[in-house]
């Protein structure tokens, strides 16, 4: 699994097989909270993708150039949280200044992502999987796209639920969680797809 083929496998597996929301159950909060309408879901998904890429861009060098060198691997979590949180703040300031239109579209979601566990999860898992720098970037892009996919699918499902008559005891959060579990089950069907893709 070297070179370009390896990168494709990483991308596909992080979108479909190891989907952060549906298989690893990270980032459930925005998944349930911002998936009511399609345009909001897309906005959130795109923002998370951008932040995941930026976070990997910043945390991978820190891990390998600073933490590993001094034998301080156990500080990973706290240092990564510091970096990601301030990165998102900086991104918001820059967007507000240079692209107010983009800030209106994505800006509202940025504060929500500041301490999103999916973003932190991507940064840490890239290190744990011993990915190279390029592989890490591809993997975080895949994870972001996977999050976007899950958000879009779920917002479609939720708009259908809104139109239908739900038994009284299942209304609201209950039916939302049940629907989420069904999507998650459906994604289990994709589990073997990547291993045999290039076999």
């Amino acid at each position, binding site marked *: 699994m070297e070179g370009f083929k390896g990168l494709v496998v990483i991308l596909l597996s992080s979108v479909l097989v190891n989907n952060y929301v549906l298989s690893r159950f990270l980032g459930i909060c925005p998944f349930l909270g911002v998936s009511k309408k399609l345009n909001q879901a897309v906005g959130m998904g795109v923002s998370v993708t951008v932040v995941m890429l930026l976070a990997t861009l910043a945390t991978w060098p*820190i891990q390998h150039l600073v933490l590993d060198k001094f034998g*301080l691997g156990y500080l990973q979590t706290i240092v990564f949280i510091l970096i990601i949180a301030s990165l998102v703040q*900086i991104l918001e300031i820059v967007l507000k200044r240079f692209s107010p239109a983009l800030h209106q579209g994505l800006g509202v979601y940025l504060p929500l992502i500041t301490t999103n566990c999916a973003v932190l999860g991507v940064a840490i898992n890239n290190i744990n999987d011993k990915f190279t720098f390029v592989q890490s970037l591809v993997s975080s892009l895949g994870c972001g796209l996977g999050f976007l996919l899950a958000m879009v699918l779920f917002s479609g499902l939720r708009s259908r639920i809104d139109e239908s*008559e739900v038994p009284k005891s299942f209304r609201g959060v209950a039916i939302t969680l049940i629907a989420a579990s069904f999507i998650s089950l459906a994604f289990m069907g994709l589990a073997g797809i990547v291993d045999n893709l290039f076999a």
Partner: protein
Amino acid sequence: MLTDILSALAVVVSVGLFLGILLALFIHFLGIREDEKTKKIRDALPGINCGACGFKGCNDYAEALSKGNAKPNLCIPGAEATAKELGEILGVEVEQTKDFIAFVHCNGTCDVTSTTAIYDGVDTCRGRSMIYGGPKSCRYGCLGCGDCAKVCVSDAICIVDGIARVNTDRCVGCGMCAKACPKNIISMIPQHAATAVFCCNKDKGADAIKVCKRACIACRKCVKACPSEAISIVDNCAVIDYTKCTECGLCAEVCPTGCLQKVCFPDLPDNFSLN
């Protein structure tokens, strides 16, 4: 041991310090300070984000106001008090606020219309209207499930005899009900309007009167009676132009079916609730 603790401390502190300084620099050089005026304006607005002003919400309207892109008299729930306050903050003269209220263009109560089918689905107007336009004999009329009442911010709508009615005292004129109505039969009329058309049936007169005894049959008596030419027939239904209406009430007197009436509901229950 001690060196381990110290080195860990040093790394975390230096990372934190570096990021802190970076953030401070970014805010100092690139940050946009929030306008004092915008904040003041937003505090003066009601903050219910109804969208009646035509902006996305109170924040959006406040920003447009502080940039001078909007007039201060657009806030309908806040009415004149808010407009006056906004005018003081902005230092401009305020024109009179436009007072609009919602009005349901239907008078087809249960006794003058009939049901053509038994409906047993999701009990909302939207659900009903999706199946052959609903179970009511008139395809245009109010279905009476209260989709409008559910979105009303001021509890101004109640269902009486199968028809949505707007309490003119309580209505703040936000227009949310007009957006929620699947039949599009709610429109905004001036608060001082004397008469209104209680029908929106666009079928020809003979067909309209078959499905509802109070339908507009487009007989044009009101058009002829109106001294100020404010009434016209559009798609077989009378329409009043309130910019020309002089509130004389002559049209209501000549209407043979009673679809043109005075706007007042003296028999509305004072403290009604939705069933």
